[in-house]
């Protein structure tokens, strides 16, 4: 990470150069577990973005009060609180999705991507930069999940956001069910990370 960066740079780096899933390989659990459909990927991305924004905001506001040796405790406390709020919100307003991915929402607490942002950025920087970073990372995370979700839903179910996009007659009998199962998550992630690395090597992305 560059020593002195502006807010816009900090925002962009989360989406491209420091994309949590595709470059830093953080937050793999939700990236593998809940990307079997676009809808699930979007909701998981949204929930994680909310949590990383709130966690960075609180950490950055309190950064001068936090004693170094209790900082991890404070990060975890903050993250756990906002994950629980996100979980309750989904149960109240997005009941159907929350039933589908409900088990994975509380696991955002142990998503190392979020604690990493608190430790690397929010504890040392002002509110503006911390928020820019959180939004960048959150959006980068959501876009990565979305990429996996789109590939897996189209190949595995023949649909996009539950709309049929591949011919139903063919896909009902020959769907690549493996794509919506765990192995499909690993296959897709591997290929996507490979493509991203190739493009970065060639200097097409960020750099």
């Amino acid at each position: 990470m560059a020593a002195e960066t502006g807010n816009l740079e900090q925002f962009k780096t989360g989406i491209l150069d420091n994309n949590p899933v595709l470059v830093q390989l953080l937050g793999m659990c939700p990236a593998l577990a809940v990307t079997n459909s676009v809808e699930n990927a979007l909701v998981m991305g949204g929930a994680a973005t909310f949590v990383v924004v709130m966690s960075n905001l609180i950490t950055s506001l309190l950064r001068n009060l936090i004693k170094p040796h209790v900082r991890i405790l404070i990060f975890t406390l903050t993250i756990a609180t906002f994950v629980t709020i996100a979980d309750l919100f989904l149960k109240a307003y997005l009941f159907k999705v929350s039933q589908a991915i409900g088990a994975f929402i509380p696991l955002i607490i142990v998503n190392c991507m979020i604690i990493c942002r608190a430790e690397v950025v929010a504890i040392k920087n002002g509110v503006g930069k911390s928020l820019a970073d959180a939004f960048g990372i959150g959006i980068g995370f959501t876009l990565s999940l979305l990429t996996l979700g789109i590939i897996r839903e189209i190949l595995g179910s023949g649909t996009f956001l539950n709309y049929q996009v591949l011919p139903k007659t063919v896909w009902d009998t020959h769907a690549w069910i493996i794509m919506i199962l765990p192995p499909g998550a690993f296959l897709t992630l591997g290929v996507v990370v490979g493509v991203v690395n190739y493009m970065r090597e060639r200097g097409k992305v960020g750099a």
Partner: protein
Amino acid sequence: MKKFIDESWLVLTMGIAFAALLAGAQTTWQGKIRENQAKALNLAVAEVVPAMDAEQERETLDIDGNTVFKCRAADGSLAGWAVQASGGGFIDKINVVVGISPDGSEIIGVKVVSHLETPGLGNKIERVEGNPFPYQFDGKSTATPFALTKQTPATDSEIQAITGATYSSQYTMDIVNDVLTRIVPQLPKE
């Protein structure tokens, strides 16, 4: 003591503040969450006892630990029973509502309310269009428990398993069988 407070006051204060925040969120959304769960259950009951009229009062019984809804038709006659049941699934608990005819002789329908079975395979136990599995129970007699088969069923008491989800099929059928053997004989006569 002073050192202790110096080191920990922030954690303690945050703990209290966050607890208050969570209590607030819980109180604000609790009603809505309960409503969602009740709505999902009502929809399931209405689906497995279609003759039920929503305006009629629905009696709730407790039979051997299971919640049973006594559903009435628009003219006040008995439309059927909706039995809530659950059991272990392949991954987590499967919650089911089984609709039973007024005289207890027939299954009207079986609806899975919630489950965490494998997407694409085990989730074919859901009663939605395109999933033949749950509809196999419709109209079947409650006299004999069902048996699972991988072929086309030869008799009325056989249920064809979902390809690639034999366990999910088995566990769902077990829950239905449990309702047939344990709850149905105890349904009050009208």
